[in-house]
């Protein structure tokens, strides 16, 4: 019985200590010692995340069209489809996944060379399920040249799309605030004759909202929305999303457009960071 009481007593003391230490971590998030501890812990947790970041879901490989498959060359003049026919089903599937991954890498590097030669390529290393639509974690940080507020792009079908900006950067990892975060705001425009400006805001879900459009706006469903470059936070003409619906805002003063993001945040594996 005494042991029981002693165990309860020491456990309560330990709990108080652990809560105190955790509260210190929470209160002093930005200090260098907490950042160092975080960097140390990240080294322990990064291997599984890196491994997963490089995996591609098998279902996506099944959706590849035969034309797309055969267009991927293995370097010896033989298409991947022909080449992989020599192998068993499982090996073939792995090769197709690798081929797609290579094709995606090629896309990313082509966009980098063509449009953003100074951009830094980073992998998505993880994300917090509780902040799924708000943040992603990249496997590169300050020592790789990333800084807070750098724009982050994904490459979709050979074209870049804005997905957010760097929120915090430690030595080797950094956190990205996605456009879907309700705190995110991006100056945007709908290109065309009118060139109507607005602000794209996140909704903490898949969708984005383009706000402050004039009530007589000519924006229509299907229009592409791009960054306007106003405010200098993001370069101009980077696609953000397409208009999916239009409605008056709650105060009936403006129109607001529901947007489908140009890059679905669930499918992002590799990103380009426009380091300043």
């Amino acid at each position, binding site marked *: 019985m005494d042991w029981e009481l002693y165990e309860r007593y020491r*456990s309560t003391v330990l709990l108080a200590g652990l809560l105190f230490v955790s509260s210190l971590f929470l209160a002093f998030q930005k200090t260098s010692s907490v950042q160092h501890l975080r960097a140390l812990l990240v080294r322990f947790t990064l291997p*599984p995340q890196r491994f997963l970041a490089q995996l591609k*879901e098998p279902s996506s490989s099944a959706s590849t069209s035969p034309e797309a498959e055969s267009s991927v060359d293995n370097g010896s003049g033989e298409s991947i489809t022909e080449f992989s026919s020599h192998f068993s089903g499982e090996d073939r599937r792995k090769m197709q996944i690798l081929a797609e991954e290579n094709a995606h890498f090629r896309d990313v590097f082509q966009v980098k060379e063509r449009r953003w030669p100074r951009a830094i390529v980073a992998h998505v290393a993880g994300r*917090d399920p509780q902040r*799924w639509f708000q943040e992603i974690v990249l496997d590169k940080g300050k020592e790789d040249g990333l800084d807070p507020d750098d724009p982050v792009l994904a490459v979709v079908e050979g074209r870049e799309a804005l997905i957010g900006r760097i929120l915090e950067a430690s030595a080797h990892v950094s956190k990205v605030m996605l456009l879907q975060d309700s705190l995110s705001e991006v100056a945007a425009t709908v290109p065309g004759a009118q060139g109507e400006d607005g602000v794209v805001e996140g909704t903490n879900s898949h969708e984005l909202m383009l706000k402050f459009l004039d009530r007589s706006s000519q924006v229509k469903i299907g229009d592409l929305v791009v960054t306007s470059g106003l405010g200098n936070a993001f370069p101009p003409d980077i696609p953000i999303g397409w208009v999916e619906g239009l409605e008056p805002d709650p105060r009936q003063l403006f129109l607001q457009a529901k947007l489908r993001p140009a890059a679905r945040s669930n499918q992002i594996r590799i990103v380009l960071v426009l380091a300043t």
Partner: protein
Amino acid sequence: MKKAFYLLFTVWILLWAQVVSNHFLGGTLFAVQWILIAVLHFGLTRGPWAGEWMGFIWGLLVDASSLGLLGIHAILYSLAGYAAGMFRRQLDASKPWTQAIFSWAVSMIYFALYLVVERFFSVNEGTFQWAFITVPLINALFAPLVFFALDYWAAVWDMTPVDAQH
């Protein structure tokens, strides 16, 4: 030495399980909190001391892996381990129903506290999500499986707690 390896491997494997699970199910209504269930297992089978330490270490690793607030999961998992340890004399942790109901209750409290702590320390306002309702149910569903797997894992290492040896 053997105990240290057992604990190290347990921490590492559960961390992998959580990261893999988050990768495929994170952000959905059907995510599973493997680590929270494991913390409850340690608390219920080994007492509050073990539950708190495991909760604290796993919590820090989860915080680091998500680059969220460092310390938020350390607080919540330590509390969960402590609560489980304190209830272990009142609950029969070998019963699947007990495991399921206790996991559900702790998961609900976990989400409520998560919102409160986040509101204090983060610039982002914690908002209610439907996952706060469904994830505890999923945890309850998987709790017996996790408890069984961890009991088996402890038996493999010959680390079954003395209390649990009949």
